[in-house]
């Protein structure tokens, strides 16, 4: 993207600087304003640089790591503060409603992880014993995973391929995204 959309008119030649030099010489010979090209390149650079900075800020604010339960178990240090997404199956009989909070245990390949959810949105109807669930949030100090969002799908058949832009969201989607109410903008 470096040289912006102006040079693609010309074909790629070995050395980029030679190309630019060549073009500048030719423009001078033609009496065309070299200034315009320079200004455009500078303007493009400023725009791209701004966008890169914004992208980086947005990235640090919203990056979410995917981890498996066994990875979470062996994590230590600063990585524990990452925002992450973990998936697994809800262990049979582990769902407990305790004063406004829901505790349950996720399991995958023999590993388990206790999860607490204290959000205000009711849990999706598909969130049941044995359901496959995707939780997003942070690891708490007591070893409990504190979920901000929970999505779940029935353990049985799930046909998710809807056409085009509209793949069938998991039914959990109906309660998803308390964290992003303004994402429309």
């Amino acid at each position, binding site marked *: *993207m470096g040289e912006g*959309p*102006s040079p*693609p*008119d*010309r*074909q790629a030649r070995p050395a980029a600087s030679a190309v630019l030099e060549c073009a500048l010489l030719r*423009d001078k010979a033609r009496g065309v304003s070299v*200034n*315009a090209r320079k200004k*455009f390149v500078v*303007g*493009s650079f400023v*725009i*791209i640089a*701004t*966008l890169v900075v*914004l*992208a980086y800020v*947005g*990235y640090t*604010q*919203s*990056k*979410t790591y*995917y981890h498996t339960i066994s990875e979470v178990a062996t994590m230590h240090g600063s990585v524990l503060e990452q925002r992450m*997404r973990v998936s697994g199956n809800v262990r049979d009989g582990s769902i407990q409603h305790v004063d*406004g909070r829901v505790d349950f245990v996720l399991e995958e390949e023999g590993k388990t992880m206790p999860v607490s959810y204290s959000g*205000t*949105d*009711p849990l*999706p*109807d*598909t969130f049941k014993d044995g359901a496959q669930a*995707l939780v997003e949030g942070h690891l708490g100090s007591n070893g409990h995973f504190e979920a901000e969002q929970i*999505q779940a*799908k029935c353990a049985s*058949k*799930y*046909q998710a*391929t*809807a*056409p*085009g*832009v*509209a*793949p*069938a*969201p998991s*039914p*959990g*989607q*109906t309660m998803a*995204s308390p964290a*992003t*109410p*303004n*994402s*429309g*903008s």
Partner: protein
Amino acid sequence: MDIFGYYALLLALVAAVYAFVGGIAGIVTRQQLLIKSARNAGLAVCVLVALSVASLEYFLQTDNFSMAYVAEHSNSALPWYYKFAALWSGQEGSLLWWSFLLSTFAFFAIFLNRKKHPELMPYVGVIIAGVQIFFLTLNNFVASPFHVLGAADATGVMHMARVADGGGLNPLLQYPEMVIHPPMLYLGYTGFTIPFAFALAALLGRYPGEKWIHITRRWTMVAWMFQTVGILLGAHWAYAVLGWGGYWEWDPVENASLLPWITATAFLHSVMMQEKRGMMKVWNVWLVFSTFMLCILGTFLTRAGIVNSVHAFAESSIGGWFVGFLIIILLVCFGAWFKNRDYLRSDNQLDSLVSRESSFLFNNLILLAACFAVLWGTLFPVFSEWFTGNKISVGPPFFNKVNIPIALFLIFLTGVGPLLAWRKTSLDGLRRNFAWPIVVGIASGIAAFIFGFRQFYPLICLILSVFVTLTIFSEFYRGARVISQRDGTDIFTAARELTMRNTRRYGGYVVHFGMIVIFVGITGSAFNQDVEKQMQVGQTLNIGPYSLLVQNFDQDNNDNYSSQRVTLEVFRDGKSAMMLYPERRLYTASQVTETIVAVESSALRDLYVVYSGINPDTNQPVVHAYLNPLVKWIWFGGVIVVLGTGLAMLPNRRTAIVLRPVERLITTPLGGNDTMAAAMGPISRNAISERSGAND
């Protein structure tokens, strides 16, 4: 009957292979008979695919549950229009639907041009057939919708099986819009195949002249319009059905539909550089190529499960096919470009920073930046896993941070670009065109600030929207005034006359205005509020100027679903204003729950109420109310965009050449006042090329 559809599809593949191979042979040997037969094979593909679609639809409508696809995606209690929509609700059916729409486009492209461009069309036919071969191979051998349920008995003989009733259509798709949204979006996705075919054909055949670029532009506009409608319908569906109060979540699947739209938008702008100034030819060809590849990528992303979307849990095995196809397309495009790159040599250079050219360059630069950012963000989990081993996803903050400034800059260019002269704009011209809009725009920004409208981006958006709207209206006004003075008609008749004489220019302004309306609507989301509350009969919830009183909870059952419903009376300023009935449905066939949102929509704001279900701790129902300002503007702006695009595709009205205005035109400096030139009728430099563009 399943035999019928199955063989129609198989024959379609055979015909496509013939159209491809025969077409190439025809081009090489220059045998007219061969070229003609290949073309007819191309037309036959379309008919055969249509027959197989009709066959599958027949099974759906007649509840033939011995067909695997019907049993999985439909049930007998489904109304007929949803049985129709069930056609594209699953992977096999939606791929068949892709082939069908592509064939429909191909049919029109080949049939309408059957007597034109004899040097170009054989190439076009071959390229379209190539794309069709890929999809028909998938339809026939990888994801056939014509599988029959059956099981082999002990002797190995297959016996047909039949289930009593189907698994039902996904309830999220049981919404009126889902009957038209996928076809629209698919018309967009498939439609971009045609401009791709023409551009690649022109490059491969080194088609002389600029004719192909006009054809490519027209077809891109058609596909772009469908894509716009498809994206907006998808957003509206998400808003009305998913029940989270928003319409866009930067989900990979949403992004996938936006990507080709962005590159097509960039192309529709930069193509003018080529038509008017002979610049950016390589760039334009690559924009068309990229748009098509992004369409294929989008189709791939929606199915392959490579990106872990909250929307798409399922993974499927056809991803590899798409990757292979994408690589082939990329190689063909690259080869065609590399071999014929001298064909695309540029005629002119950038003259000044304050010129139409440079506004187009900036427009393309930031559209491409937006496309790149969205693509990068969408595929980030894949890239991060490749390079660091950690799968990391980015969320809406990333996309919003990058794309909001881009959108604002685009709005700015929308106002400025069309009024800048080609080559170089004088200071005088700038003052004449922009002084008042800028003053009024800033004044409205100051007024809004004083009235407590303090958020930075919305404030900038307000200023820019006022500015751009004024420049658009003043363009219409100044052009119309010239005509009305000359012809003695009133200003509205004159504005209509003006528009019809240069539909492309003024249709473009209408599209720009529609986009401004959409952006204003999106800006409204900066002021969204929501309240969630556990409620019993007799309790109220307050949000904005409304208070919601729970009157009743009830149940309603029918064959297709059972539902729980809340009856809410909405008071505004102490007076009863309306009743709302948010609902939760449990669909019988699929045992899936769905939220039915109750929305009261006005131009100023939407009151959006969701019945979130029963809190299991307290056994009390929970109601979630949202107040979303200006959402309606987005849908309304979409309608304006579509009307504007339609207008821009109309041919210009020819008027008799009157000598007097021509004389006056000569005194107008070239590239000076475009409005004047356009208003004066077809004898401007501008209008002449418009006319040649309208003749395709």
